């Protein structure tokens, strides 16, 4: 079995990881994936949100794939990917806990005079004293020095990744995907340094390393009280240009261990998306998810499922020139036989499932309510006959987790569509107005949902996803079909019902995509 590793660096990496988690939940991930985040700002809101999503994913998956209690069948793609993290935790900070600045980290006062002079020449005094606990504030030179000094197999976090060399020796494919931005501090500095360290340590033909590098795609109003050093959005473009020149030089001169990346995806956006919040570091830095991050996650899914593309080193993902961004513009993920790699099919089904579960069936299965429906055929066939035990805590725990996940997924989808739209480009993937409430993003960077979700989607459910096929099931047909459904072989408990509902929410074949080559 292929071993897959996903490493998200900085805020952009964390948000790409969030998108990757949703793809995995919808069934577009590998069977098994290790995930880790690199960010010195452990209280960063982006990272916090992704870590919470990771915990929710793992808890939901464990509840739905729990043999003997509640288990989906082997074939279902729902929460297919088993996601692991390092034993020390999913997040790793390049900056040790006791260190607050570069001067501390490099023991400035204990340096020899020549070294100290060189250090002072390379870094401004403000950079040397900058508080590293909130990231590198778009100063990749600072980040590169810190990361380079700290990525090592002795670190608990990196042990699993460096141990992949043993997998490669057993003729297993190892695929490592790194995501970061070129324009920030943490991502820009960590991306090439970490890739270089891994390539050096895992030098084997069975090990593929690819990455997605996000070019500037968002901006925000400059914070009023951020101190002398902060991520200045106006400098993103210039930093990106300088960084791209560096990458060009680096990729055109392969090192002794071969090229740094098997494939490198470059992500961008036609114009900078304006974020509704302006914060720099800390819990407040919780940006809304944006479409380029989904592109990054799709690149990772493609890499994990198919391996590197052999005839191309740098891949550009482009969209059709049109004032409307639709499913046609999202790249498909070629998958193994039996899996559906069409993003519209996969995310559309997950969206419909989430709306149906959260808006209709989830609340019915709560402990005080479910008995009202135990005479219904769908209940008797899919819940009573499979010993769901909805009065018990395990089933209710699974229901609650899945409900929370569906809510998080819907909020993420609504936010990604609304916040990625701007003058001249309307993102039209689904009818977001029927799901998401009006107003700015909440404190966690995500938009809120309508309270009366069922009332808003019940009539438009077949066409909820843009360009749905005319035969996509309505909520009415889903209820009829559930009444006639039988549990899949191997499915048991609440998961048998969940799987049946998930299947019923599949999109009918819509109009063929006009994807350009």
């Amino acid at each position, binding site marked *: 079995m292929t071993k897959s590793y996903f490493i998200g660096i900085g805020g952009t990496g964390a948000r790409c990881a969030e998108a990757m988690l949703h793809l995995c939940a919808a069934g577009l991930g590998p069977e098994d994936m290790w995930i880790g985040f690199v960010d010195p700002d452990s209280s960063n809101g982006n990272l916090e949100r992704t870590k919470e999503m990771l915990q929710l994913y793992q808890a939901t998956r464990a509840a739905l794939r729990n043999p003997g209690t509640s288990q989906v069948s082997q074939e279902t793609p729902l929460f297919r990917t088993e996601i692991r993290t390092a034993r020390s935790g999913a997040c790793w900070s390049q900056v040790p806990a006791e260190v607050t600045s570069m001067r501390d980290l490099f023991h400035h006062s204990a340096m020899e005079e020549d070294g100290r002079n060189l250090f002072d020449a390379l870094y401004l005094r403000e950079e040397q004293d900058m508080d590293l606990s909130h990231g590198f504030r778009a100063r990749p030179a600072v980040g590169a020095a810190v990361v380079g000094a700290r990525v090592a197999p002795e670190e608990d976090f990196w042990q699993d990744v460096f141990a992949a060399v043993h997998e490669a020796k057993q003729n297993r494919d190892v695929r490592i995907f790194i995501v970061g931005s070129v324009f920030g501090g943490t991502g820009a500095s960590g991306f090439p340094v970490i890739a270089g360290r891994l390539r050096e340590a895992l030098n084997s033909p069975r090990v593929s390393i690819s990455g997605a590098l996000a070019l500037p795609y968002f901006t925000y109003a400059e914070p009023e009280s951020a101190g002398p050093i902060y991520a200045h959005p106006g400098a993103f473009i210039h930093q990106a240009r300088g960084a791209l020149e560096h990458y060009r030089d680096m990729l055109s001169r392969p090192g002794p261990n071969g090229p740094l990346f098997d494939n490198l995806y470059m992500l961008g956006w036609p114009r900078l998306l304006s974020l509704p919040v302006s914060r720099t570091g800390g819990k407040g830095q919780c940006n809304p998810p944006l479409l380029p991050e989904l592109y990054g996650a799709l690149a990772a899914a493609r890499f994990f499922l198919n391996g590197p593309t052999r005839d191309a080193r740098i891949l550009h993902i482009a969209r059709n020139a049109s004032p409307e961004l639709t499913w046609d513009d999202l790249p498909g993920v070629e998958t193994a036989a039996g899996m559906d790699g069409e993003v519209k099919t996969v995310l559309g089904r997950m969206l419909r499932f989430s709306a149906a579960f959260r808006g*209709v*069936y989830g609340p*019915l299965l709560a402990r005080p309510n479910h*008995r*009202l*429906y*135990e*005479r*219904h*055929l*769908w209940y008797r066939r899919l819940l009573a006959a499979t010993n769901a035990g909805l009065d018990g805590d395990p089933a209710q725990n699974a229901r609650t987790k899945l409900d929370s996940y569906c809510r998080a997924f819907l909020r993420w989808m609504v936010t990604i569509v609304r916040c990625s739209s701007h003058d001249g480009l309307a993102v039209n993937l689904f009818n977001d107005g029927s799901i998401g409430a009006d107003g700015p993003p909440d404190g966690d960077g995500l938009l809120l949902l309508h309270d009366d979700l*069922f009332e808003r989607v*019940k*009539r438009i*459910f077949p066409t909820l996803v843009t360009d749905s096929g005319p035969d996509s099931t*309505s*909520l*009415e047909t889903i*209820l*009829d079909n559930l*009444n*006639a459904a039988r549990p899949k072989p191997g499915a048991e408990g609440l998961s048998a019902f969940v799987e049946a509902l998930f299947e019923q929410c599949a999109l009918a074949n819509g109009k063929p995509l006009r994807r350009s080559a």
Partner: protein
Amino acid sequence: MKKFIPTLLAVFIQVVACAIIVALLNMLDPNLFSGLLDDRFSGRSQKFAAEDLKFGIIVVFVSSIGLAILGSLVWLVYAAMKVVYHPKDVPALSPVWSANTLLFFLATIVLDYLLVGRFVYGLRVGYTVHVVLLGLLAFLVFYYPATFFATRPTMRPSVLFRNRLFARSQA
């Protein structure tokens, strides 16, 4: 269209079953009905009166079954067209099903009495109730299976009954 296929199939099966029953009744010996004849028939006229009686009873059967088919068709079409997005919208013992059943049940009683009184020639008066009851039995035999099995699962009366019983027990 998918929802209407069971309805069409149910009507077709009912019509075929009705035709088979009528054919079987037609094959019966008219003398079997002579015991139901009024005393005024005797001798050679008894045979002709028994023939008429058999025909009259078949008319009662066919009309009862016809009403059953019509009644079940009305319910099946209603059930197929009823929009239910949410399980909580599934009616607990649908008033439509109750009203429809009652209406066609009463219509069958009235029609059977009318037919027996006007067209069933020579039936002994005391047996009128028996023939009407047989007509009602035919009605029920055709009406219930059709409404129970051909209704789409969401609106199936057995589910609705159980909902009603359960709602009562919870109350």
